[in-house]
């Protein structure tokens, strides 16, 4: 899901670039040295996963997973999504050089919002909250991207209002698919590799018994 070259007006394109540079500069500053290879390797997984097509009815959609990027990488989702979009531009010519800014704001902003929704899970105490909040985050990623896409079309010109409407409507099935997939994936990761998820609280109460034993043994040994 991205907008092509040649549609948007110059002010919208410029706004996209300015916004992207500002947010990217802020989020890139927070990267540590060891984050660089890690974030890049994980970005390539998302890049590959977005090639997966999932059937809906008679047609199929490809996964976008910008919500999941937010769930896994947190604030680092923005530079990761920017990388994905630049790579997509260079390799496929999908979108284009002039719309890198707008597309990054659209999908990367969705990723950041999804991370915000994902973090809300700390305030509730219910069963399967990873699945529920993962699903919400997945839906939020697509929803906000759809809104930004529609807005950038409408601000370009009035004649795009109808197109913007159709595009928004086309996002609804994608939103449902993403919610289901991201929810399942978040639940899976919470079970299998919880530290892969962003914003996990340090496991103070629930630390593993083996580890506790080990630390106790260490303390005794040091005495």
């Amino acid at each position, binding site marked *: 899901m991205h907008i092509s070259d040649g549609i948007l007006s110059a002010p919208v394109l410029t706004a996209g670039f300015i916004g992207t540079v500002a947010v990217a500069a802020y989020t890139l500053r927070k*990267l540590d040295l060891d984050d660089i290879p890690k974030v890049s390797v994980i970005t390539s997984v998302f890049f590959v996963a977005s090639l997966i097509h999932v*059937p809906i009815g008679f047609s199929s959609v490809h996964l976008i997973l910008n919500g999941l990027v937010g769930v896994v990488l947190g604030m680092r989702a923005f530079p990761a999504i920017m990388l994905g979009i630049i790579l997509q531009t260079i390799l*496929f010519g999908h979108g284009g050089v002039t719309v890198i800014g707008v597309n990054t704001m659209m999908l990367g902003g969705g990723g950041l919002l999804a991370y915000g929704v994902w973090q809300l899970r700390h305030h509730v105490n219910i069963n399967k909250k990873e699945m529920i909040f993962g699903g919400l985050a997945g839906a939020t990623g697509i929803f906000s991207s759809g809104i930004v896409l529609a807005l950038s079309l409408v601000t370009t010109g009035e004649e795009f209002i109808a197109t913007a409407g*159709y595009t928004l409507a086309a996002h609804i099935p994608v939103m449902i698919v993403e919610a289901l997939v991201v929810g399942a*994936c978040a639940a899976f990761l919470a079970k299998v590799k919880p530290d892969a998820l962003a914003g996990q609280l340090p496991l103070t109460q629930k630390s593993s018994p083996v580890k506790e034993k080990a630390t106790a043994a260490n303390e005794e040994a040091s005495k």
Partner: protein
Amino acid sequence: MPLDIDRFAHVASPLQRWDPRVKLFTLGIFVFSVALIKTLPIALLAFCTAVFILRQSGLPYDFVASSIKWIIFFLLPFFIIMPLSYPGETAFELIGLPFAWEGLQIATLIFIKAVAIILTTFSMFGTARFDVSMIALQHLKCPKILIQMLLFTYRYTFVFIEEMRRMQIAMRARGFVMKSNIKTMHVMGNFVGTLLVRSFERSERVYKAMLSKGYQGELHSMVRFQSERQDYIKSALVLTAAGLILTLDFSGLFLPAKQAWF
């Protein structure tokens, strides 16, 4: 869709001999000037220029066509939506919907510009090895951290595509068929999750291997660039074309595809 856009980077051509730094800078400016066009005749002129530049690159026709066909497929809906939804005067009714010529003009303009830009992207990045292009971008003051990450992401994309194919074969071997139901979505979620867990472990190993080889946040490259007079002549030609296109477009000799835009 070819993922390795630099598959034919070895083909000798004027574009391949062009200093990557000068090439990327010049063609980048050309792309932006194409994006600003708003009259149909000039868009066609820009399209012809883009085709001419691509012809100079010596890239095989099939290679470019196989990627272009997807883009064309994505742009086709515009030809239906725009004429039928344009708020201007209607020429005639089409199955009960108003049909406006202005809408069709805009759709054509968008289509020509988009294809011209994509063709130029091939000229930009198809004529040098990917890593050389990236290092050239770094010389053009692109942030170092971004270039490093792009190189990593590109390199591991191929690894994970292989991994994904293997997992898909394993799934098919166990009789999994994709359908549009909740079960499939659940399985796909777990599929992506597994891919992620593996990538986490791999990224851990990659980082340790890099540290042990002395990684301190810098990538060193053996690539050296040298620009000669010929490089600047090519650059001057393309920049003149870009300038001409923009001047003609803004001169008012041709009617814009529509008013109240820009």
